[in-house]
């Protein structure tokens, strides 16, 4: 059963794999999934009821301004910044506003 479709997953993960690596990774993934499937054996009906590990409550921050980074710092790691913006190939055909 080929549950793990590497072409679909590489799209979800947004990684463009070379054909060679794709073949190797497909094999690796199939092997790993067999091991992970072990979790299907466990009886999970009587599990305790918590979604989060941390027992702490979510702390709330007061709505006070803090100093942002300077534009220079913000762009300090950017490739080809322009007019104080980050740049990327033309983004087309999406629903941005």
């Amino acid at each position, binding site marked *: 059963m080929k*549950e*793990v479709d*590497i072409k*679909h*997953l*590489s799209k*979800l*993960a*947004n*990684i*463009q*794999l*070379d054909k060679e*690596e794709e073949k*190797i*990774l497909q094999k*690796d*993934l199939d*092997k*790993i*999934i067999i*091991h*992970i*499937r*072990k*979790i*299907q*054996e*466990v009886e*999970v009906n009587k*599990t*305790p*009821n*918590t*979604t*989060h*590990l*941390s027992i*702490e409550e*979510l*702390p709330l*921050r007061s709505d006070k301004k803090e100093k942002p*980074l300077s534009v220079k*710092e913000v762009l*300090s*790691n*950017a*490739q080809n910044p322009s007019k104080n913006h*980050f740049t*990327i*190939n*033309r*983004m*087309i055909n999406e629903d941005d506003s």
Partner: protein
Amino acid sequence: MKTILEYQEQFKKEEMTPLDLLEKSLEKIDPSLNAYITVTEELARKGLKKDIQGKLKGIPIAIKDNINIKGIPTTCASNVLKGFIPPFSATVIERIQRSGGIFTGKTNLDEFGMGSSTERSNIGPTKNPYDLTKVPGGSSGGSAAAVASGSAVISLGSDTGGSVRQPASYCGLVGLKPTYGRVSRYGLVAFGSSLDQIGIIGRNAEDVGVLLKVIAGYDPKDSTSSQSKVEDYGNLNDTPKNLRIGIPEEYFKQIDEEVYTSVMKIKKAIEKEGILFKSVSLPTTGYIIPTYQVISYAEASSNLARYDGVRYGLRKDGEDFHDTIRKSRNEGFLSEVKRRILIGSFVLSSEAIAEYYERADLIRRLITQEFNDVFKEVDYLLTPATPTPAFPIGERTDDPIRMHVPDRMTAGANLAGIPAVAAPAGMIGKLPIGYQLIGKPFDEKGLLSIVRLVEKIVPFQGFIKEAQDG
């Protein structure tokens, strides 16, 4: 070889200056070990000039290269972070600096913390100072190698499934993974957010405790950090009385014979101190690795989605913006990280999420409950830290499944969010081997106190001679 407190005494008595200690430490950096990605000599000297008085005054500390120091490159041993220099420091770094601590450099790791050998790094493997043909453990292998070889007095690592404890075991050191939430994660590059903790690798329990006291405590920038009181972790002379320590049978299966003997030696030594040992059982142990894999890979696939070259890091130009991002990520990540991201995406995907991620989450709660239950009968658990001593470089690089084998001992504590410490049990030939103690939430002091007790009764003889002087 001195403890942090002993160095502080020496500084006070002017028998040695912090600059002496720094220079001696930097001299011990051996490039052939490949423990450091970036040596931060200039930063360290500047730090000394500030002459900050504090508990860590003048102590040279190595920092795993997935913890941000402002103005110093953070690489996470990955090409995807090429050229990235963070404009902020991790909270733990700020706390160390305020206590006078200084940094020798950023140490090597498995890319983004994913691995158990420090081989999967874009700068190549770090070698075990005890035997250059063996791994130092991972993913905090650089930190462990730095301390074991004497170029740092103590170090910070990170532990998601055992990445501080396992290298400590392979390098004859004390490695502590605190309770989840004990130490702020702000500034630690995330791998498995619900599992990660910054941990400490040092030469003895007291040093680890002194550093823990400085870095531990609530941080408003980390919403998962705990308000629980910070104790005097460096004061370890009182061993808790009437201790009961459990020996979980599942942790003693499929381990080297000599590992078993070493751990039992520790048991016998402290039994004489009136500590009660009891056999216990943790039946979910066999499910720890797959549960850990599902949860950590899922979180990793999400945490690593930000590495797209748009705001920082490697960028490979493509035909359109989708293409540019996909190519950049393909070129930037090594294969282990790719594997984990792909599987992580799989277990969260709509077809698989119920059977995998959600199920693993339920099993995690069972595992946690099981620890809670066992801690009603005993106060601590004693286990091996690793099933074998350090393995040869290259032995497991092509085997993603075998790579996880040591995690069997350590990942349970991450899943349950409880503290655990690895410490030297002895030597197996030329190589050190560690034992592990697991404790209740926020009982780091108890864990370190027992390690301190063991140090007094059966002091570790295996420290590397050259690392010791100075």
